[in-house]
């Protein structure tokens, strides 16, 4: 049916069957697939370039160090950070957020201080703050969202007040796909001298992020959701704030002193990366960024839009299907959460699975949001730019199979009732 110029770059999309059906991969919000060139970059690294980095006294180690550090520059430009020292490599979004919570939160919060989150947060941006709150005596407050799945700024104005020290919000909901007004929230946070943290795990893969424009203080994301390898995350932090954080790891007074001057100028972020890093992962993430930039966010947004329009308009005609969040395809960022009548989401996802369509079912690590929606779980189909209208069609067929099967085979009781 529809041609998609990028599919050929992804071996898994062309080679894999799931339950004897060609794979329709609609679980991109969990992790994206990887293009050949990312896979090749890892192979090349281990086949020809592998060495431990930093303190390099031979040519192999120096090249690996340079390649690794070059990705820091790439990430810097990708999100328009002011300086490469603002880019810290971590394992994942989860680690990035835990890191901020523990190193900034625990050090700065006092009893009575408030941390403002939203009811939409992924557990990764919730549990670390619960822990910090418990330890410091700070209090968590939650922003609610409107019919569009978007945080209500008027309510936010009341919640963010002089007691607020931290506002930490997801930029795109991993369940509803809705885009949150993090720039406006950053402004509110700064007006009361709080810091603004953005969980960008679901946004960075889909649209251009400019941290200077957002004026956020920290921002976290994961390579594996944007074509990169597993085990690599990023924490962006404003230099002024990072400088106030104790390094995890350093070697003696002299070096500490130096790091305040020249050494910290050249390797500011390094002091937070203790031990051997995921060197191959970071280097391959560089290849992923290069590829993503070649694709371009314009194309990605256009494809997101076209897939969302086609899927959502079809779903709106299905009386048994309930879509969560906005009715507007533009506010879904590739993500659709839904339920099919009273059928348990895991029964739904099993039908999809047997049809070769990979979706998720569950609470998506967002239990407070599930409670707010009044459900214990949803199905979630999440698309990326290499998905095409065929995938939408496969999705709709699986949905029809679900409805057909459970309508045709009702349980005796429910047919009685």
């Amino acid at each position: 049916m529809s041609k998609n110029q990028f599919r050929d770059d992804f071996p898994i999309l062309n080679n894999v069957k799931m339950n004897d059906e060609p794979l329709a991969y609609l679980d991109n919000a969990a992790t994206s697939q990887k293009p050949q060139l990312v896979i090749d970059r890892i192979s090349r690294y281990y086949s020809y370039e592998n060495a431990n980095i930093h303190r390099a006294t031979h040519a192999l180690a120096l090249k690996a160090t340079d390649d690794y550090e070059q990705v820091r520059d790439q990430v810097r430009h990708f999100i328009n950070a002011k300086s490469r020292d603002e880019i810290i490599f971590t394992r994942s979004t989860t680690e990035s957020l835990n890191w901020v919570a523990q190193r900034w939160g625990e050090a700065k919060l006092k009893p009575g201080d408030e941390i403002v989150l939203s009811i939409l947060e992924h557990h990764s941006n919730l549990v670390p703050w619960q822990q910090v709150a418990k330890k410091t005596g700070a209090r968590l407050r939650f922003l609610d969202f409107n019919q569009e799945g978007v945080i209500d700024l008027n309510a936010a104005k009341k919640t963010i007040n002089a007691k607020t020290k931290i506002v930490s919000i997801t930029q795109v909901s991993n369940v509803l796909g809705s885009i949150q007004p993090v720039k406006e929230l950053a402004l509110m946070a700064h007006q009361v001298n709080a810091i603004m943290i953005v969980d960008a795990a679901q946004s960075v893969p889909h649209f251009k992020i400019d941290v200077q424009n957002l004026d956020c203080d920290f921002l976290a994301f994961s390579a594996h959701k944007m074509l990169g390898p597993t085990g690599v995350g990023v924490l962006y932090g404003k230099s002024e704030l990072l400088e106030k954080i104790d390094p995890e790891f350093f070697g003696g007074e002299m070096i500490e002193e130096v790091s305040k001057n020249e050494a910290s100028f050249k390797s500011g972020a390094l002091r937070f990366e203790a031990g051997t890093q995921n060197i191959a992962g970071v280097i391959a993430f560089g290849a992923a960024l290069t590829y993503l930039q070649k694709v371009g966010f314009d194309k990605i947004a256009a494809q997101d839009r076209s897939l969302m329009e086609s899927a959502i308009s079809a779903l709106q005609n299905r009386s048994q299907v309930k879509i969560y969040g906005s009715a507007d395809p533009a506010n879904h960022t590739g993500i659709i959460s839904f339920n099919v009548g009273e059928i348990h989401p895991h029964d739904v996802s099993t039908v999809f699975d047997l049809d070769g369509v990979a979706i998720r079912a569950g609470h998506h690590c967002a239990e407070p949001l599930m409670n707010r929606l009044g459900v214990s779980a949803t199905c979630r189909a999440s698309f990326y730019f290499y998905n095409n209208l065929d995938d939408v069609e496969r999705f709709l067929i699986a949905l029809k199979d679900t409805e057909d099967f459970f309508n045709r085979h009702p349980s005796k009781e429910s047919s009685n009732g």
Partner: protein
Amino acid sequence: MGLEGLNQLYRQVVLDAAVDQRYRGQLLNPTAVQLAHNPNCGDVLELQIKVSDRHITAIAFQGQGCTISQASASILADLALHQSLESMQTRISQFQKMITGKESVEIDQLGDASVFSKISQFPTRVKCAGLAWDALEQMLKNNQFD
């Protein structure tokens, strides 16, 4: 796989057992209570039993879950009622071997539960089928019942 697979997985007896209300709920003064958690989906099931003279004299479960887990819990409850703890031990281990499909086993004492004999072909659902049984196994392990 598609529809053919569906018919195998969701037999009528499964669909019916899933909505069977007889063992749903809580007991008054249960002898033992056990939660079981399916890490694949996050669903939690609570099983309660009353034991007297090492026999199960009442059994109930509650919790949310998929058709498979609910059906399997109903079928287990129906099977376990009035049985001795010892005989249930045997059945649990028969059932667990059956659903993982690792060895061919006697399933002569499993009754309706043998409807899950092909579930190992649906690996994402094996844990669902085993959930209630794991809870009972854990109960028998954790309690003396004397």
